[in-house]
């Protein structure tokens, strides 16, 4: 079946929905998602959205600008960071006008809280910059934007997996989807396509990411010859609920929570003497694992304690209801009176599909863009977050660049006629799926996936070395070889998760290789990419973005310069 829309958005999280709300003012917009609406992983964001509103204390966008640049270890592009931090207050007010029920100050303004790496006076002391709805900000904003999209008659295609991007003479003109309920393939044709599909956290064993965050769209674009930028930068959130890895928001530390080791020592004082527990996430994650390696984890085990017990019941139940409920449901403990066991958990992909400041996908190191194709949100790399994202800058990124993409698409489609491809784009996809389902083989996708997650965790997470990365690449290549003999047992047509998870696994394995090869080639430590064999930052050689291109024999690595500006690289200490 061929279904036509002017604008097609892949992904129903915050970036996709914000773009949909913007574009649907004048254009016909459809959103396709592999899950039902409101199930997207943006809903798991807890802590807030940053903007220098100054509602609680003095704040300036210039300070937000500096913190974001420093937080990203000077790898973020300062032209687009400036766009984002200046636009932040407007983005927040706009959400408020749409109906987001923000927590409030006594005088009725939007309340703000502390968050890691956000400071006043260029690093002098923490500042309250994160606007929030208790500790379920992402879910409430997701619901509000979905409600807005419904009010604007945006069309949703839920539980449809994108299996192919369709190009006509170099221009993206739609996608081929697999309808999970029927097993049918459809060509969703559009004048422009926005990719807003989130990250790929599920390639790691322990992650805060949901089951749907498998990253196949990243690999689909990669296979089309579009580069992936800065893929070695994977954020590990310091406080995943141990052992599940469920996110325990930085808001817990923003509200005054303290990390303690087995001796009860507030150890962050040693690693970040000025802002302690509110240092950037890469710094805190390394600190926790350093404590664990030194045998100072709780009971000598692989976790530390997040202590909220001094905050008082009222603050905890009013402002941290969700994370308190997670501790109670999954560990049977009361966070009001007991510390929460936490350890780093894979959380966020700083890298992704390179775009300009209006979401247009970049084709290479030059200013050339891919006609008809946009990307926004975690799957995109604008690049705002550089080598490490600050907490609460993600939702801001989704809103600002989701909206800008929606605006640019709306303007563009006015002058584009629908492109008709002469061929049937579902045919090659059908053949690929048939090759998978017809194959008999000894390998099971589940076993390979589990091994992939262990390989990535062992060789490509918080601490990296050349030797480990090489071992990791070899192991992933061996798994790719085994994947060629994988067998899909379920041959049914309705809700065949077995088939879709196998397709996802193929993409995940390719992404693992891109991540490890990008990490191997970056011979320095910067932000979330920490090389124990090369612990210093090397601005001389690596103050530049990695671009990985698809090539025979493995990813080809190229580089492009970082856009500097107001802030020159300096020592990064907290």
């Amino acid at each position, binding site marked *: 079946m061929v279904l036509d829309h002017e604008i097609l958005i892949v992904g129903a999280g915050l970036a996709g929905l914000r773009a949909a709300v913007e574009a649907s003012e004048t254009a016909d917009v459809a959103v396709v998602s592999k*899950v*039902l609406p409101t199930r997207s992983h943006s809903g798991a964001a807890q802590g807030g959205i940053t903007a220098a509103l100054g509602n609680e204390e003095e704040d300036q966008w210039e300070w937000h600008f500096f913190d974001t640049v420093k937080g990203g270890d000077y790898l973020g592009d300062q032209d687009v960071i400036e766009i984002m931090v200046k636009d932040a207050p407007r983005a927040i007010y706009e959400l408020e006008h749409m109906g987001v*029920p923000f927590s409030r100050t006594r005088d009725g303004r939007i309340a703000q809280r502390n968050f890691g790496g956000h400071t006043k006076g260029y690093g002098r002391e923490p500042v309250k910059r994160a606007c929030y709805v208790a500790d379920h900000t992402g879910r409430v904003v997701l619901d509000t934007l979905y409600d807005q999209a419904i009010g604007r008659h945006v069309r949703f295609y839920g539980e449809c997996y994108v299996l192919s991007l369709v190009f006509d003479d170099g221009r993206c003109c739609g996608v081929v989807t697999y309808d999970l309920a029927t097993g049918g393939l459809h060509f969703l044709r559009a004048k422009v396509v926005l990719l807003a599909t989130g990250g790929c956290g599920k390639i790691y064993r322990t992650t805060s990411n949901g089951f749907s965050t498998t990253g196949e769209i990243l690999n689909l674009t990669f296979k089309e010859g579009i580069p992936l930028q800065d893929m070695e930068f994977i954020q590990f959130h310091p406080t995943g609920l141990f052992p599940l890895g469920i996110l325990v928001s930085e808001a817990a530390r923003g509200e005054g929570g303290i990390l303690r080791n087995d001796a009860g020592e507030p150890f962050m004082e040693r690693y970040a003497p000025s802002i302690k527990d509110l240092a950037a996430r890469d710094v805190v994650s390394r600190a926790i694992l350093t404590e664990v390696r030194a045998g100072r984890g709780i009971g000598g085990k692989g976790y530390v304690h997040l202590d909220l017990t001094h905050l008082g019941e009222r603050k905890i139940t009013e402002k941290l209801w969700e994370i308190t409920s997670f501790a109670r449901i999954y560990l049977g403990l009361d966070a009001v009176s007991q510390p929460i066991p936490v350890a780093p958990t894979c959380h966020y992909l700083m890298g992704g599909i390179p775009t300009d400041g209006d979401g247009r996908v970049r084709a290479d190191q030059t200013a050339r863009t891919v006609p008809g194709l946009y990307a926004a949100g975690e799957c995109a790399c604008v690049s705002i977050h550089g080598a490490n994202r600050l907490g609460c800058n993600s939702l801001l990124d989704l809103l600002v660049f989701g909206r800008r993409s929606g605006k640019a698409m709306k303007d563009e489609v006015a002058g584009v006629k629908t492109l008709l491809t002469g061929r049937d784009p579902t045919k090659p996809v059908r053949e690929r799926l048939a090759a998978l389902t017809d194959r008999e083989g000894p390998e099971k996708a589940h076993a390979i996936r589990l091994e992939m997650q262990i390989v990535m965790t062992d060789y490509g997470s918080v601490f990296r070395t050349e030797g480990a990365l090489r071992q990791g690449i070899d192991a992933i290549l061996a798994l790719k070889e085994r994947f060629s003999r994988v067998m899909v047992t379920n041959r049914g047509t309705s809700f065949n998760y077995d088939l879709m998870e196998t397709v996802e696994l193929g993409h995940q394995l390719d992404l693992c290789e891109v991540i490890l090869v990008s990490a191997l080639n970056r011979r320095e430590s910067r932000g979330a990419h920490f090389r124990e064999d090369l612990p210093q930052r090397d601005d001389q050689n690596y103050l530049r973005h990695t671009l990985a291109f698809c090539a025979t024999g493995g990813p080809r690595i190229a580089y492009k310069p970082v856009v500097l500006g107001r802030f020159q690289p300096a020592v990064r200490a907290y």
Partner: protein
Amino acid sequence: MLVRLKVFRFDPEKDGDPYYQDYEVQAEPTDRLLDCLNRIRWEQDPTLAFRMSCGHGVCGSDGMRINGVCGLACQKLVESFGLEVRVEPLPVFPVIKDLVVDLEPFFQRYHSIKPYLIALSSPPGHERRQSPEDIRPLEDAIRCILCACCTSSCPVSQDPQTADYVGPAALVRAFRYLFDSRDESTSERIAMLDRQDRVWGCRTLWKCTEVCPKEIPVTKLIGHIKRRIYETKRESNEGEIRHAPKDEAGNGSWGEDSEG
């Protein structure tokens, strides 16, 4: 420990009638029911269908009937149900396959109550003011994740005679906008809700409140809508309200004052 799961199966492609299939999986007491279901699908039977996404009670995907009570598979630990558990799809909605139900009617009803802020006056250049007291009444309602456990558990929604009832989840969202100090369509919302298939369909039976995975006092919130309608009509001297609140469970008439 070895856990036995009795799972509802139905594949319209090949089954005339649904049936139950027994599975056994090794599990820790602290494993989630969702972990057990995944283990079945990944290691034993890849044809088993169920929805999931976030795995920690935020996305609302994995609502199902667990030992007869609707809940989220990612929130139920093995230790809470012991060695044997019966797993079935959410009632009320048509089964598509196994534990997957068609939620289209759920979302359609949700959309029918205009679940978005209606503000007619143009907004200021900054935020509208709302005090913490203005926000407090909404705090429970905005925890809703649209998992459909409440609506599936509601005896009114389950009864084919009253199947057009909009259901508690839609009413929770209606509450969230009706009681938002920024919304400017109160009279339209009240007219929209003042119907037998909307708020007066609720018979204060408390099942929604009992099952809500986010601990929302659903029945109380619906009771507040009823009272708001009643008081608005009394003030406007409209006389008799069309649908008197029913109280079959013997609780407070509005569902506001009793825990049931």
